C-alpha cells in the first residue's frame, strides 16, 4: 500500500471526523459532560477496514485533535483520547476476515462486528490507563459513570450499527444469502434494543434530576442495551449459520458430483436434519447414488461392447444384392467405370 495514499486518506477523513466531532459536541449525552452521541466514530473504523489500519488510526487521531481544538478543549489536553480514537480506527482494520477482505459470510460479519465492539472497549480502556498513569483527570468512581461508560457505549453501538451500513456501498460487504440473513436479523435486533433504550431515555429526559429516574437507571438502560445487542448478535450468528452452513456444504457436494465424485457420505449430518435442508441433502445423496449406478452400468455396457453381426443374415442380404443381373453387370463394368471417370 502506498504510504502517501495512507497518510492523505487518513488526514483527509480525519479533518471530516474532527469537524463532525465539534458539531456533535453540541449534543452531549445526558449526564456525561464530555461525551457526545457521535455516530462519526464509524469513520475511522471504516477507513481502517477499507484502506489501511494506519489510515484508520490517522482519521481517529488527527480528527480528535481537530475536534478538541475546534471545541475549545485544547489541542493536547486530552492526548490519551486522541490515541484512543486512533486505536478505534486501527484495531478493526487490523482484523482481517479470512484473508479475503470482503465480508461475504456470517463468520466474516461476526468477526467484523466483534472487532468493532472490542476495539471500542480496548480503546477506552487504553485511554483510561493512560489517564491513570500520566494525566489524572479522572476521578473514580464518578468518572466511570460520567465518562468511561458513556464513551464505550456510544462508540460500540454507533460502530456496531453504522460500520456495516457504510461498508455496504463501499462494496466490502457483499450481499450473499448469509450476509442478507444476518443483516436482517441484526437490523431487527438493533431496532428492538435501541428503541426500548430510546423510549426509556425519552421518558426520563425531562426529569433526569428527579429521584424516579436516577442516573443509575439510565446507565442500566445503556449497559443492558449493549449486553442485549451482543448476546442477541451471538445468538443470531449461531442461528444463521445453522441455515447457511448446510447450504455451503450442499453446494460443495453438488460441485463434487459435477466433478464425478459421487461419495456424499460427509453430508450425513445435514441429511439427519428433519427440515427442508435435510430433505434436500437426502435427495442429493440419493441422486448421486443413482447417477453413480447408472454410470457404472453404462461403463460396463461399453466395456462389454462387442459388435455382434449375424453372419447368416449378412450373407443372405449380400446375396440378394450381388445375385441380381444389374449387380453382375455393374461388377463387370466397375473397374472400367472408375477408370473412365477421371
Amino acid at each position, binding site marked *: 500500500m502506498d504510504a502517501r495514499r495512507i497518510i492523505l486518506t487518513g488526514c483527509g477523513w480525519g479533518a471530516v471526523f474532527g469537524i463532525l466531532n465539534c458539531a456533535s459536541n453540541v449534543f452531549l449525552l445526558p449526564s456525561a459532560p464530555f461525551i457526545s452521541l457521535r455516530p462519526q466514530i464509524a469513520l475511522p473504523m471504516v477507513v481502517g477496514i477499507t484502506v489501511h489500519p494506519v489510515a484508520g488510526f490517522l482519521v481517529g487521531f488527527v480528527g480528535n485533535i481537530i475536534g478538541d481544538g475546534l471545541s475549545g478543549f485544547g489541542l493536547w489536553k486530552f492526548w490519551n483520547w486522541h490515541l484512543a480514537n486512533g486505536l478505534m480506527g486501527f484495531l478493526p482494520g487490523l482484523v482481517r476476515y479470512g484473508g479475503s477482505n470482503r465480508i461475504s459470510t456470517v463468520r466474516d460479519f461476526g468477526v467484523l462486528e466483534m472487532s468493532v465492539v472490542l476495539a471500542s472497549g480496548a480503546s477506552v480502556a487504553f485511554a483510561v490507563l493512560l489517564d491513570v498513569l500520566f494525566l489524572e483527570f479522572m476521578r473514580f468512581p464518578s468518572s466511570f459513570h460520567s465518562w468511561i461508560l458513556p464513551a464505550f457505549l456510544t462508540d460500540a453501538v454507533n460502530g456496531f450499527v453504522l460500520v456495516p451500513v457504510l461498508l455496504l456501498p463501499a462494496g466490502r460487504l457483499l450481499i450473499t444469502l448469509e450476509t442478507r440473513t444476518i443483516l436482517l436479523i441484526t437490523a431487527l435486533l438493533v431496532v428492538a434494543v435501541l428503541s426500548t433504550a430510546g423510549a426509556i431515555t425519552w421518558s426520563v429526559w425531562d426529569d433526569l434530576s428527579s429521584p424516579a429516574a436516577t442516573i443509575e437507571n439510565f446507565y442500566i438502560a445503556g449497559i443492558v442495551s449493549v449486553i442485549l445487542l451482543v448476546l442477541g448478535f451471538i445468538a443470531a450468528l449461531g442461528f444463521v449459520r445453522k441455515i447457511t452452513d448446510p447450504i455451503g456444504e450442499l453446494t460443495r457436494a453438488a460441485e463434487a458430483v459435477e466433478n464425478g465424485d459421487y461419495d456424499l457420505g460427509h453430508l450425513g449430518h445435514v441429511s439427519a436434519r428433519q427440515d427442508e435442508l435435510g430433505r434436500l441433502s437426502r435427495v442429493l445423496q440419493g441422486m448421486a447414488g443413482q447417477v453413480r449406478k447408472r454410470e457404472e452400468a*453404462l*461403463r460396463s455396457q461399453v466395456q462389454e461392447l462387442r459388435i455382434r453381426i449375424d453372419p447368416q443374415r*449378412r450373407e443372405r442380404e449380400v446375396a440378394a*444384392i450381388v445375385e441380381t443381373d444389374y449387380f453382375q453387370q*455393374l461388377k463387370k463394368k466397375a473397374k472400367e*467405370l472408375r477408370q473412365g*471417370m477421371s
Partner: protein
Amino acid sequence: MAKIVAVHSFRGGTGKSNTTANLACLLAQKGHRVGIIDTDIQSPGIHVLFSLDPNDCPCALNDYLWGRCEISQTAYEVTPTADPASSGKLFLIPSSIRTGDIARVIHYGYDVNLLKEGCQRLIRELPLDYLFIDTHPGLNEETLLSIAIADMLLIILRPDHQDYQGTAVTVEVGRHLEVPRMSLLLNKVPACFSREALTDQVAHTYGCEVVGVLPHAEEMMTLASSGIFVVRYPDHHVSRELRTVTAMIEA
C-alpha cells in the same frame, strides 16, 4: 486426378448429409474445387444446409436425369464465404423437392447410367478435385452405381446394433465391387464411449480404416438443418475432428 467419394449409410438419421456438407466445406476452404451431388432423390435434404432455396434453382438433378437440361445447368455454387482469394469452390447439385418429381422417380425410376455420365461431365466441366455423392440410405441401384464409380466409399454409422449389421452388408458389397478405399466414420457417439476402444473394435470387425469418431454434439443438434457447423463453429472440437477426417480423405 479427381476423387469421387460416395458417402453412404445403412439407415437414415446417421447425419450423412450433414457430415458430407461439412467435409465438403472444409475441403473447399482448403482451396479444393468440390462438388456434392444429392442422389437421395427420394428424400432430398442437403440443399437446406446450404440455405439454397429450391425455387431459385430452375434445374435439379431430376431434370437432368429426364433429359430436360444439361448436368452443368444443375450445379449451383455454394462456396462458404471465407477467403475470397482462395481458389476453393463448392458446387451443389440438388435433387428436386417437388413432390411430383419425387413421385415420378419412385414410380418410373431413371436410367442410372445417366447418373454416371453426369458425374463424369461434372468432374470435367466444372472442373472438380472432389465429388461427393450423397446417397440414399439402403442399397438401391443408384447407390450401387455410386459405389461402383467411387474411389472412396465413406460409410457413416452410429454405434448401435442395427447400424453394425447394415454396415457389414455394405462393406461386403463394397468388396464385391472392389472399391479402392473403404472408410468408416462413427457419428453421434455418446460421451461415455471410449473412443479408442470403439475405434479398435470397429476397425477390427470390418477390416476397414476408421477415419473419425464424432461425438454427439449439442451445438450440432441446435444448428440442426440450418447452416454448416464448421463454418459457424470453426474452433469447436467437433470441427477439429472433422478437419482430421478431411486430411485423411485428402491423403
